[in-house]
């Protein structure tokens, strides 16, 4: 079975990560921001799995599972915050949350 090189997998993870990062910086909709964070976490998980596959070990996948658990927790709290955000400010634009300026 022809195998993929380590670099291809890691570069794919890096590309996904930076795309998520662009979204994080540019998008103002809170839900999309959360989705972008999911993309970045997913990319980080991908990097773990690739690294695990490099050695043919299960550790990378275990780490992915932890990332997954964290992502689930994060998105649950994040969406709850989004709901409160909407109630408090009347919209989902994160630029509206600039009241705590120094």
């Amino acid at each position, binding site marked *: 079975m022809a195998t993929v090189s380590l670099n291809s997998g890691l570069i794919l993870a890096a590309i996904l990560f930076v795309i998520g990062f662009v979204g*994080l*910086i540019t998008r103002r909709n809170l839900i999309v921001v959360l989705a972008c964070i999911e993309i970045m976490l997913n990319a980080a998980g991908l990097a773990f799995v690739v690294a695990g596959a490099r050695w043919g070990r299960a550790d990378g996948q275990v780490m992915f599972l932890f990332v997954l658990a964290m992502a689930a927790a994060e998105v649950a709290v994040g969406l709850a915050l989004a709901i409160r955000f909407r109630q408090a400010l009347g919209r989902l634009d994160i630029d509206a949350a600039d*009241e705590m300026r*120094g």
Partner: protein
Amino acid sequence: MMHLLWLIPALPLAGFVLLTLLNRRLSRTAAAVIGAGSVGLAALVAIAVSASFMLSPPAGHHFHQVLWTWFDTGGLRPQVAFYLDAMTVVFILVITFVGFLIHLYSTEFMEHDEGFTRFFMYMNLFVASMLVLVLADNLLLLYLGWEGVGMCSYFLIAFWQKDAQNVYCGRKAFIITRIGDTALIVGLFLLFTHYHTLAIQPLMHAVGQAPAGAAVVVAAAWLLLGGAVGKSAQLPLQTWLPDAMAGPTPVSALIHAATMVTAGVYLIARTHVLYTAAPDVRLAVAIIGTVTLLYAGFSAFAQKDIKRSLAYSTVSQIGYMFLALGVAGWDAGIFHFMTHAFFKALLFLGAGVVIEALADEHDIFKMGGLRRELPVVFWTFTIGAASLAALPLVTAGYYSKDLIISTSLGSVDGSAWLWAGAVAGALLTGIYSFRLVFLVFFGEQKTPVTRRPRWRMQTPLVVLAVLSVIGGFVWLPEWMGGWKPFEQFLSTALPTTDAGGWAFGLGEATILEVVSLTGIAVAYLLWMRRRAATAVFAARPAPDALERYWRAGWGFDWLYEHMFVIPVEWFAHVARNDLVEPVVKGIASLNVLAWRGLSASQNGLLRLYIAVAGAGLAVIIAVVVLR
């Protein structure tokens, strides 16, 4: 018993800690019990330790107690260790016993003061520091005590800190003694770099091996003398002591008469080997002592404030001690320290009663006629003044001063000039001490008595008066039989001096007797019999100007003001915009700029924060990857 030595400084220190921790929760009674009780217990322990030291002298006539190693760095390994020899025994007895009497006195003297607990806190810390100073087995621990007493002195002079003048006086005392302290610590550095130890006994042994007049020994002796001069208020660093009278009177009695100001005497006596090896410096000690005792005698003579007069008298008497040390009469200096501690503490405490009784009146010309109003004070104060004036045969001061005067001529280092100065000083002492007695207790009463002392203030007066009389009988001159237990006792720690035979001593003593009686008689004439004529004479322009000059301490304050303070202030004013200033201001404005920039960056825009975090990430990766 001697292993209890560590308790002597530890007890007042414990009192200090207790008073500090429980400060506001203590009632006045409890604070008084802790404050005076800790020093009282220390006095009991000191008596027990001293008794055991005298009855069964340890090997080599000294006792060494190592508690722990203070620190150990770069070859400097000072120990917290106490060294007890005959000289130290004298000092700890005087400090704890006189200290206890003054604490007892203070419990009544300060009873209406709002800073009652604070007062005893500082006093206990002072006693602990002073004991560390005299018990220290190395010069670094001695320096710790030295700075400790200086600090407590500053706190206590400025004790009534709501008056800016008192704080100013405290600051003056601190800064001027600091000049001497700096010389002392430099001297310690010099000794350490040369001999690689600061433990006094090995150090003195090493110094004793050095050839006489070796440069390092002479330099160290000068520097240590600088410290002693500052602490003991000798010329030219004497100006702080009269101003130190701004503190409460018990402070003046304990710190600025009996104990701390004699730390310089202790230091020189403790390092006497150094001064034996540097005869030039020893001569300087004698000259400083003589000039100071004359200078301060004249100044004391012209004071109007009773406490300032006594302060100048203290300077003068310490001058006698310096004179004794300068002519190698180490034991005579210690003897005078002891008797002086008794009678000067007595005089200050008596003055404190008078000042309290007359509602804080310091001017002796507004006192008078208190002989019947305050009989106990009158008698004890008179005994103290008589001891100060060296009233022949019956007072302690006579024996110690006689010894110093005869040593100043009879010792191998003695000279007629020093002797003449000392005798003239004795005349002045007689005049100014009985001037106080006659002006304060005789004549007509000018100010009503509002408060009378009770037993806690009177007991110390009586005890000190008794000591001022009998304290001298431990060292009788040759012509009186030569019973000298004190000299024999001290001879285990200090080299003795031969002050001449009995015929010489008798002639000497006769001269002193005549002189001191003359002084008292002059005072009687001037301020008892012819008081009105004296007042008329003193009001004439020339005597009045002279008196003003003397009262201002020969203008030393003015001189220092114009020599040091005003030029420094002028320079500071001129140098306000020097090269350093823009740098300092630049740093400040840079901070303001950074603050503006950083606070502008906190604009609450989360996306900007993330972008900046990303940029930071890019930079970090660039550094790590592209390195």
